[in-house]
């Protein structure tokens, strides 16, 4: 039963190892409906694996992942698919299908609907043009192939694809990586607009502190497979947590480096 106190996404004791390497060592994380959670942390700390576990792309070893109180890991395959269909994802490098034109990338989820709900290709193409407009691209971009787009445009198209089905959860994997600061700010602005317009619950993972404070309502830091701090995104630069302080201020000396030396 979903009550105002029920998190939209709740992760408990999530563990995942690849061979001998324990990537997630018992992650606990709650994301309330309509809020944006930013997960920060160094490279290789398991941020992407956490998202992939929630998306069902990686099978966790232990723990629970609840969406609106329902545990995905014990649910039937159909229920899992239904829950996960509510999630839109922007991948780090866009992950656009390079064999398809831009409009078909954007409308891919619409064209994958069951036949009873699937729009005609012409209607899907028109809808793709409208969605491209929402991310600041003209409909004519739809005729290009992904290889003809700049990095910033690819991110916008990736965002358009993620929001095309109007999902009530949106995930962003390092949305500003590889972009110049201005384009990064533009993408962050689009993300905030889209999340607000759709009323979605969002999780973003990033290394970019400016991006984290722009996108997030709340922030959490993942370190050595565990959440070591969580609080308002506005407090991330002044958290008082030595791990977070060192990471957010980019200091060479500190507990993270010491942990690496061990």
């Amino acid at each position: 039963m979903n009550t105002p106190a029920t998190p939209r996404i709740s992760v408990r004791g999530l563990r995942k190892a690849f061979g001998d390497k324990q990537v997630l060592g018992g992650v606990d994380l709650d994301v309330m409906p309509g809020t944006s959670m930013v997960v920060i942390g160094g490279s290789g700390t398991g941020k992407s694996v956490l998202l992939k576990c929630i998306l069902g792309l990686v099978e966790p070893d232990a723990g629970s992942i609840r969406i609106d109180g329902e545990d995905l890991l014990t649910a039937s395959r159909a229920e899992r698919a239904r829950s996960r269909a509510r999630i839109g994802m922007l991948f780090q490098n866009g992950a656009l299908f390079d064999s398809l034109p831009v409009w078909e990338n954007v409308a891919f989820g619409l064209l994958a609907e069951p036949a009873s709900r699937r729009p005609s290709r012409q209607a899907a193409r028109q809808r793709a043009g409208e969605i491209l407009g929402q991310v600041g691209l003209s409909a004519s971009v739809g005729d290009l192939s992904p290889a003809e787009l700049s990095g910033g445009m690819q991110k916008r198209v990736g965002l358009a694809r993620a929001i095309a089905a109007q999902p009530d959860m949106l995930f962003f994997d390092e949305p500003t990586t590889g972009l110049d600061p201005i384009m990064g700010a533009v993408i962050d602005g689009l993300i905030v607009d889209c999340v607000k317009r759709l009323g979605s619950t969002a999780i973003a993972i990033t290394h970019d502190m400016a991006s984290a404070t722009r996108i997030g309502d709340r922030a959490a830091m993942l370190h050595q497979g565990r959440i070591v701090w969580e609080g308002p995104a506005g407090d991330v630069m002044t958290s008082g947590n030595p791990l977070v302080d060192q990471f957010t201020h980019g200091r060479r000396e500190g507990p993270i480096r010491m942990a690496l030396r061990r």
Partner: protein
Amino acid sequence: MSATLDLVGGLGRGTLGMLRVLGAIALFAAAGLARIVRPPFYWRQFWRAFVEFAFFSLPVVALTAIFSGMVIALQSYTGFSRFGAESAIASIVVLSVVRELGPVLGGLMVAGRVGAAMAAELGTMRVTDQIDALGTLSTDPMRYLVAPRLLAGILAVPLLVVVADVLGVLGGFIIATVKLGFSPSGYLVSTAAFMQASDVGVGLAKAAVFGLLIALMGCYHGYNSRGGAEGVGTATTSAVVSASILILAFDYVLSEMFFAR
């Protein structure tokens, strides 16, 4: 003693590793084939793969077939003329081409062309998160990427082999009539007399199996590639090598099944 144990241990690990890979390939094949018969099926993806197999491989298969037929005619003449058995050349050419060379050489050429491209495409999709992206768009990657390619391989390679059979026989005919002085009508009569429908049928059945193997190896290695550009390169090489070996191995098994007396 320790060296012996190490050797036995190494052999055991190698065997287990090989069995693990074979099991993974068998499960992958079963998952892909099951999605051919259970809807939905992605016909656009199928058509794209079919054209890649059947149309764009046509020149390379055609050239391979015609030159193979020419070489067989030439070499068999060299051997048979020593025993006065030149008249058997037409039968040797048609049986070799239809039973073995058409399917096997056609399969090997297609493995080098389409199998490699398939592994490279799926491998690139894997390392650039495109396969994960399919999963987030309510699309089963096995259904979208693998099943259409498996069906395309099964259907397209036999068509290519029909062309290879015709051109292989034509190659032999050209050499026999132009270079070796055979009568065109006599050569064609001999060819028709020795060619049986069952030979053609078994050759095409072999081709369907080879088409499946080519698509399976391309998809399996591409789908499971890891580690960026190097991983894609390794997947491509593995797809071609494994498909080539499997084509030759299955050719023996199928020949044993259908032709052994």
